């Protein structure tokens, strides 16, 4: 049924060039949402009496929704910016989504170590989000990092107030325009360890892996293991030129292994997940004004959820026994304070337990314990294969590192780390409470900001 719309009255105030214009300050256009906001310039400029308390009320409302500090009305700062500016705190990722991944550091280059010399088709990066979207475990997937590649700022920082000069900044470039694929010796070793673990686990369907390694090595490990395990990214931040977490290297590693991930995605029939976390996500960080806090709290799946997926054992993979105990966010998942009814056994596994005793000129396969003979003793240290019966030789062949005997115990101190305590950035807030600029690089003067201006 269609109800007729009444005939339109003549639109009032349709004149242009008289301050009656509406100006768009926010525009979103991606797969999830399309939207925009406009401001009536004349009315907005008339209303210079907007008070900060109104905006703060809005911030509280937004914070209640997402746990994020909102950015109420930052766009209208073009109109409402006042003389008094203060430093405040906002969620880093939200600022990057609004103002660009390089928020406050436009033009500062990313530094890549180990740039690959292999042919690289930059346009292929457009496919990375699709390549990394799991076929079986999408419910656990965190798409934050792949989606950063093509992200454009949704809004521009406000123009400088009258009498001030904006610094000349280079044009914005998306991450997909600046990322370079990397491969380092550490990544290659992690790749071969991944291959070795995949070989060992082939055919054992009830195992899952949570790899908590430095980002590039984590990606390389997953690339090595992805013939058997389905990679599920849990990277929940964006790169930044002066980020505490060098996430651009993780993205660069994904770019390097993208062909491998794409190929194996089409071949793989297994639903066993391999969750990827960047161990540097909670790197120690003090209130340094020249660093951008892009750290994050892991959103790892609960053991009870994995149990529902018929996972019986989870291997928590770390670089070495020295990487234990696990960070607070993972402790809360693997050793919950209030244990959930679940049947997932959790054991730690150190990459240093994979090696080779072979002397060759090129890369050789890695084995658990270093040789083909010790390789099968994996199922002694990790008794998740009921069909495996060790021989006498095998049972004495290799003693795994302390990681294999590590116990996950709930730590009361883990609760002190919360998602909100990570990933916050100082910003300049105008007199109306609106974000004016990132407050990176401040050196005792609140008037000198990257991406802002000085008077």
């Amino acid at each position: 049924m269609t109800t007729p719309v009444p005939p339109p009255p003549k639109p009032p105030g349709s004149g242009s060039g008289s301050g009656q214009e509406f100006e768009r300050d926010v525009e979103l256009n991606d797969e999830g949402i399309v939207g925009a906001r406009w401001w009536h310039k004349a009315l907005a400029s008339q209303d210079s009496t907007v008070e900060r308390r109104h905006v703060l009320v809005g911030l509280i409302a937004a914070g209640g929704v997402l746990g994020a500090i909102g950015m109420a009305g930052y766009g209208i700062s073009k109109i409402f910016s006042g003389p008094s500016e203060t430093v405040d705190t906002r969620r880093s990722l939200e600022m990057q989504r609004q103002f660009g991944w390089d928020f406050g550091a436009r033009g500062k280059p990313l530094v890549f170590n180990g740039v690959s010399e292999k042919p690289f088709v930059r346009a292929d990066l457009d496919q990375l989000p699709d390549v990394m979207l799991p076929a079986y475990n999408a419910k656990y997937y965190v798409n934050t990092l792949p989606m950063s590649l093509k992200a454009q700022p949704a809004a521009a920082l406000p123009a400088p107030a009258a009498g001030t000069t904006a610094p000349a900044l280079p044009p914005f470039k998306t991450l997909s325009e600046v990322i370079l694929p990397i491969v380092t010796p550490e990544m290659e070793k992690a790749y071969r360890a991944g291959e070795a673990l995949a070989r060992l686990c082939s055919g054992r369907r009830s195992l899952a892996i949570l790899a908590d390694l430095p980002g590039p090595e984590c990606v390389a490990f997953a690339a090595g293991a992805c013939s058997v395990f389905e990679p599920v990214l849990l990277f929940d931040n964006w790169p930044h030129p002066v980020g505490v977490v060098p996430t651009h290297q993780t993205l660069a590693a994904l770019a390097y292994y993208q062909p491998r991930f794409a190929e194996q995605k089409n071949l793989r029939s297994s639903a066993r997940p391999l969750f990827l976390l960047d161990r540097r996500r909670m790197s120690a960080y003090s209130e340094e004004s020249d660093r951008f806090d892009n750290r994050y709290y892991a959103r790892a799946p609960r053991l009870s959820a994995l149990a529902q997926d018929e996972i019986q054992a989870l291997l928590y993979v770390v670089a070495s026994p020295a990487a234990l105990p696990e960070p607070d966010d993972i402790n809360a998942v693997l050793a919950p304070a209030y244990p959930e009814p679940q049947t997932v056994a959790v054991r730690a596994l150190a990459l240093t337990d994979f090696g080779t005793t072979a002397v060759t000129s090129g890369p050789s396969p890695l084995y658990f314990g270093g040789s083909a003979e010790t390789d099968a003793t994996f199922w002694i240290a990790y008794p998740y294969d009921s069909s495996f019966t060790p021989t006498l030789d095998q049972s004495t062949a290799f003693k795994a590192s302390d990681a294999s005997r590590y116990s996950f115990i709930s730590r009361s101190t883990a609760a002190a780390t919360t998602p909100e305590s990570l990933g916050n950035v100082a910003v300049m807030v105008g007199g109306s409470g609106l974000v004016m600029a990132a407050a990176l690089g401040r050196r005792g003067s609140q008037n000198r900001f990257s991406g802002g201006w000085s008077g």
Partner: protein
Amino acid sequence: MNHAIFALELCLELAPDSELWSELRALVAEHPAISSPGKKWQMLRSAVQILVANQDAFVRGCWDFFDDNERALKDYDMWCNGMITREGARKEASGAPRRHGEPRFMTFTMSFLMDAGSQCARDVAKLCEVPENLLWKKQTFVKILSGLGVMNFAAVKSDVFYVIPGDESWGLTAEDLTDRKFQYLRMIEDR
């Protein structure tokens, strides 16, 4: 200036062959960065026409009018943040309804921050005088939509429009709508 706010959000079922989503999406995405009260009014009129013509697809919704200044400012920020933080948007594709045979849904949201002392605000207030037992009726949503021709953009300080999803294969699922964040969207009663 004291402020008033009108906001309306509808959740509609995405039919595979319907142009509802693409028309609303285009309406928002293609509206110029610099606009005029006249163009804004035409935009609203077009949105109303599309929605009313597709009232059979209405599933859930909500609408608000407040002329309390603090409430209006707070609520307008809230509606804007719903867009800016992509609160309701999915994080990944859900698949087109045609392909998966499961229903998919979209939302269309619009909110207007007005001069509370204007005739426009008074007209909208009058439009929104609805008995409580009719608040969630489809006929009420249609009546309000159809009456939005009274919106005078000379008195509208800011407006926001958004459509979820931005890509047809990112439609909301029935399970998505059970999430707590969508609780404010009530089932729309047919009669």
